[in-house]
């Protein structure tokens, strides 16, 4: 297990550290400021904070020393004159995902934004450029729309460690897109998904993958918690297969995490439908599959089973070795040392949790 938990919350970046058999708070940065994503680059140990100031816009900061000091970097910005659609200027409204570009490209970083632009840095994050090929993709203006946010947003960036120019991204709402040339060209990878909220459930785009992740042990195995169920691919997203429980609870939700060492094992954090977005029957549960989604096991030991309203946002469920952790919308942070068999409370009094990451 990596010994740090990095949290992005509605009121700051919070880090927990595991020492002498217990977790304790190590760092609080940006107190009071919404942190949409707190991200540790495993290559360098650099911490990144994607901020969402209500008044002053989105900002990007990095720390070389585990949050002791921070440096503000120019946040990804849309070139002058770019529009979301006719008459609506494109401005960065939210930083919704971040990923490093792999070991072969040590200076590369990716950031996904609302309103739908993907940005790349080739200089360690000193500057970011809009990936024009995706922004000008012929489907974007008419075929993408808001889901979870008012405008389209890129919440998932999955870099293939075997070939780091090969990247999948997840867009709500558009679907899954794939590039094999570091963003020069894109293919739509929505085959097998459904979108029952659209007039045409087999549309080319408009799908709502809430989060997309890949198995570390086999990057051709991709998982997604979608608005319309849970899907898995074993062929690099060329085909998606629905693997949820039609009678629940593993069906609707936002988050998914895959085991580091097992492409068939994953966790989801079920929520009660897109109508209420609350814990199912007032009880919190995580579901785990050990067989690629054929069956799901409910994991409730140590989790509140009454009067509970928590749900888990899309970046707020993570695993590392035998450890699993998640943060909730009502500020609870839970940790399991045994792959979800039992849960411990780390804090009941946090702000709303936006992101959780295990880090060194």
């Amino acid at each position: 297990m990596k010994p740090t938990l990095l949290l992005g919350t509605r009121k700051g970046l919070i880090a927990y550290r595991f020492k002498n058999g217990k977790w304790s708070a190590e760092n609080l940065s940006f107190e009071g400021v919404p942190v949409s994503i707190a991200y540790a680059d495993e290559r360098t140990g650099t911490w990144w904070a994607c901020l969402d100031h209500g008044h002053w816009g989105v900002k990007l900061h990095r720390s070389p020393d585990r949050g002791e000091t921070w440096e503000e970097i120019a946040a990804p910005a849309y070139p002058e004159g770019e529009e979301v659609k006719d008459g609506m200027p494109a401005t960065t409204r939210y930083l919704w995902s971040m990923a490093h570009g792999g070991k072969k490209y040590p200076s590369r970083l990716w950031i996904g934004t609302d309103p739908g632009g993907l940005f790349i840095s080739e200089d360690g994050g000193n500057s970011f450029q809009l990936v024009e090929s995706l922004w000008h993709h012929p489907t974007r203006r008419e075929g993408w729309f808001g889901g979870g946010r008012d405008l389209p947003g890129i919440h998932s960036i999955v870099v293939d460690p075997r070939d780091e120019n090969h990247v999948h991204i997840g867009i709500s709402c558009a679907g899954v897109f794939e590039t094999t040339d570091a963003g020069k060209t894109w293919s739509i990878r929505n085959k097998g998904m459904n979108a029952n909220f659209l007039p045409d459930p087999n549309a080319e785009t408009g799908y709502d993958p809430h989060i997309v992740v890949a198995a570390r042990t086999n990057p051709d195995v991709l998982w997604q918690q979608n608005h319309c169920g849970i899907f898995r691919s074993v062929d690099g997203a060329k085909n998606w297969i629905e693997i949820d429980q039609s009678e629940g609870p593993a069906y609707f939700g936002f988050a998914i995490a895959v085991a580091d060492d097992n492409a068939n094992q994953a966790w989801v954090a079920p929520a009660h439908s897109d109508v209420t977005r609350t814990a199912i029957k007032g009880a919190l549960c995580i579901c785990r599959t050990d067989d690629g989604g054929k069956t799901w096991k409910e994991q409730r030991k140590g989790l509140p089973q009454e009067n509970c309203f928590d749900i888990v946002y899309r970046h707020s469920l993570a695993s590392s070795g035998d450890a699993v952790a998640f943060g909730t919308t009502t500020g609870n942070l839970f940790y399991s040392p045994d792959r979800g068999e039992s849960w411990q409370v780390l804090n009941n009094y946090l702000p709303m949790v936006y992101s959780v990451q295990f880090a060194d």
Partner: protein
Amino acid sequence: MPNVKFTYALKRFFPGIKGVSAEGKSFREIFAELETHYPGISSYILDEQGSLRKHVNIFIDGKMIHDRKTLSDPFTPGSDIYIMQALSGG
């Protein structure tokens, strides 16, 4: 020379920020001046397309500006220009 004054809320990001007696005859020129005093401050007040951020207000001699998109509201060399945060969060 218009006097540009700032909300106290910007002190968190620009410690020691004080009012600036500016030379500029347009907001574009004023913001260029402000950048020399406080690098990066424009990005806190304006978005990347040059429009005033949604929850920021600018007052000229006590009156809120009308043109939030291109900041064309006129001011005089004796104007007081206040850059404020909206109380959108209550």
